């Protein structure tokens, strides 16, 4: 069996475990969907009406039956109906996902474009003042909560330049790319800020290690100019920790970024999951957590495949 197949086989097992965990934990939270939906008016329902509603949302039976029913549906691609949206769970998730994916991709792009060169630069200026400046900036970037960064950006733009970030109805990228980017760029910078700081720190320390390796000395002894030593000989060897970090961060971002979505009024996965939990929208919580877990596993797999691309010593088959 090759590596990819072996990894893919574990996917359903992990998903099963995740689904059981979510199923149990969401039901351990006190409250139910109907009270959450109707508020105090739920008390006015006759027992028959309540039973009918419960049957409609599939929460009239014991947990085991509920789980069995849900699992049977899930296996056929039916994740159930969302109580809050009155639509199939999958449709609700897929409506929100493009925005979250785009936001994650943009933040990662910003993080790598800024963080990698900054880290490499700092490593080559080790212990000099420019290195110190980069390190301090990275420390600030990592330790500032992203709502502070987001609010600061909005504040500076509106007070300093009289520009307000584009809010209001979200425009998907393929409808109007320019307008979409206008809406996305500030939240992406907000998320990318801390991400870039982490990338800077990890790429700096990885580069410092690699630059003291014997093969870097060999490259210099061959007359490779400084830039060639850094970009061709050292950087490819320093990328593995950067890829690991980026994979993990990217995986998290695919689960939504609640605070930034809230600040910039974006309809992403994060807010949707939060609302679903507050509304006791069991089907939506289960479906979206499962979806997020799947994303995370895919990202991890891509990270592992990238290792093998970066380093020929890593042979994924032999283990």
């Amino acid at each position, binding site marked *: *069996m090759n590596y990819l197949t072996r990894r893919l086989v574990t996917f359903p097992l992990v998903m099963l475990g995740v689904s059981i965990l979510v199923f149990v934990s969401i039901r351990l939270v006190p409250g139910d969907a109907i009270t959450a939906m109707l508020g105090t008016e739920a008390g006015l329902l006759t027992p028959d009406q309540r039973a009918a509603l419960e049957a409609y949302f599939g929460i009239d039976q014991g947990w085991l039956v509920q789980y069995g029913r849900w699992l049977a549906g899930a296996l056929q691609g039916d994740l159930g109906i969302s109580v809050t949206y009155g639509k199939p769970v999958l449709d609700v998730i897929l409506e929100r996902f493009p925005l979250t994916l785009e936001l994650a991709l943009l933040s990662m792009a910003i993080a790598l474009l800024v963080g990698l060169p900054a880290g490499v630069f700092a490593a080559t200026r080790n212990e000099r003042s420019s290195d110190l400046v980069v390190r301090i900036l990275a420390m600030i970037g990592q330790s500032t909560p992203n709502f502070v960064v987001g609010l600061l950006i909005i504040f500076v733009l509106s007070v300093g330049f009289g520009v307000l970030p584009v809010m209001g109805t979200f425009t998907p990228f393929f409808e109007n790319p320019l307008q979409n980017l206008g809406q996305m760029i500030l939240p992406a910078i907000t998320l990318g800020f801390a991400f870039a700081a982490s990338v800077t720190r990890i790429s700096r320390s990885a580069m410092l290690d690699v630059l003291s390796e014997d093969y870097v*000395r060999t*490259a*210099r*002894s061959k*007359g490779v*100019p400084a830039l060639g030593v850094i970009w061709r000989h050292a950087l490819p060897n320093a990328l593995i920790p950067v890829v690991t970090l980026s994979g993990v961060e990217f995986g998290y971002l695919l689960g939504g970024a609640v605070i930034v979505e809230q600040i910039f009024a974006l309809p992403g996965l994060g807010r949707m999951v939060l609302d679903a939990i507050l509304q006791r929208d069991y089907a939506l919580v289960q479906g979206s957590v499962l979806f997020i877990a799947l994303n995370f596993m895919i990202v991890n797999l891509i990270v592992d495949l990238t290792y093998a691309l*970066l380093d020929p010593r890593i042979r994924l088959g032999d283990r």
Partner: protein
Amino acid sequence: MTPLLSVRDLHVGFGRDPAAHEIVRGVSFDLDAGETLAIVGESGSGKSVTALSINRLIDFGGGRITRGAIDLRRADGGVIDLAAAPERALTKIRGGEIGMIFQEPMTSLNPVLTIGEQIEESFRLHRGLTGRQATAAAKDALDRVRIPDAARRLKYTPHQLSGGMLQRVMIATALSCNPRLLIADEPTTALDVTVQAQIMALLAELKRETGMAMIFITHDIGLVAGIADKVMVMQAGEAVEQGALDAVLDTPQHPYTRHLLGAVPHFEAGRAARSDYRRPEPPVAPPALTVEGLTVRFPVTGGLLRRRTGNVHAVDGVDFDLMPGETLAIVGESGSGKSTTARAILGLVQPTRGAFAANANTRESGNRAPVQMVFQNPYASLNPRLRVDSILAEPVIAAGGRLSAETTARMTMLLERVGLPLDSLQRYPHEFSGGQRQRLCIARALMLNPSVVVLDEAVSALDVSVQAKVLELLVDLQKEFGLAYLFVSHDMAVVERIAHRIAVLYAGQIVEIGDARSVLSAPRHSYTKQLIAAVPSIDRRHETFALDLRQVPSLIRPLGFEPEEAAWQRFGADHLARAEG
């Protein structure tokens, strides 16, 4: 005519104030085209720093040339002072006019680039070749260092090749643009002795072909003898003696040179073997260790279901016994199974088959663990967070014992025996030198009063003068405590000085075993002969080695494979060699 390279009053310092922390203090020498200068010295003598200063790689290691000149006559006849040259001029000279090879071929090649890419790079940088031309040039370069099947090897990445092959690749890269000077910084120290002989032969042959000059840095005076025209001996940053090869080796003027020559164990083909012990015949005491049919195999798996498709026969039916007070040296190259044998006897790897039994030390009482071990690297084998008293107490605790006044008494006794001050107990490992640390490791191994001590390359990491003292200590301890040593080593000169008997391991099997003097002076098996012929020595300074491209046989065998029963030929009272087909 001016010399190719002229170094005048070179000073190199490190740190924030390089002038105050000089590692090289006023070294001067000349090198003519086609000449080889050997720089000899122990670690810390400044020999590598001197070499790295010539192509100014020292700048990247935190060093700075504080004084002096390094005049290189360039191909166009002009002279450039490398000590003052700007980095831009230096990148043209590095690789183009001065090539360099290093000690560790395994780590000196970039693991993520193919061999071909790394050789081609030199042609791109200095010859302006691109595409197919560069590839063809890289193939020629590999052919030149006699790598078989060069075209295919170009696509390999470094981890797919052995150390010897990688060092050839390094040489191919360094010589790709026909530099007029090659700096070789301990290029064979990390290699097996037969591979070392191959690399030395190759360097000598390439030197004849290209007429390049060479600076050869080494700690091994025996190796210098085969290749150098001139020798410079360094101590504490200064060149204490330099001159023509024969003059320095035969009539050394400086006391330190004499000390070095005296400390280096010269291989003397059995003449220097120990004569303080004879195997009693018939045996008077039970052996300290008997090993019968020891076999260690590691599974090889493959295919769709990761089924076992074969075995690596790491150790294949090894028998020997070891008497109290006797040293058996196990010699062989990396991959011959010598370390696996040692580890199996200590229970660190599970033997597939075979039996071994160790008997308690009869000379002393209170024996709890009959076999103890001393490892190669004294820096890595002592826990840096433990004080010496805890380190020495460790084996006692591990054997289920308690710390008592007796334990402390034994600690102080052993510390005194291995020649360490008594206040050592309160100190940490980093406060000791490499030699002292190895003494600590020996004391630790003796805490439980073993009958057998396995010494796995125990003196290989030490400088020669330290090595000699540790060997002396081992002999003294052996006599005092009646210890049996299993001495695993690749260094024939050291083995000659410590072994009573020698077992030669090749591809997991003993091919020759017997009395040290007899094996070393009259080797019978073809592999033993090859091994002994490869040992460099001062006496053999004008001999040349022939290039031999034979490969070590693969140890991977199909499932169910059993080696043939060994047929032994007897040569004298205690000397057996495996019959060759």
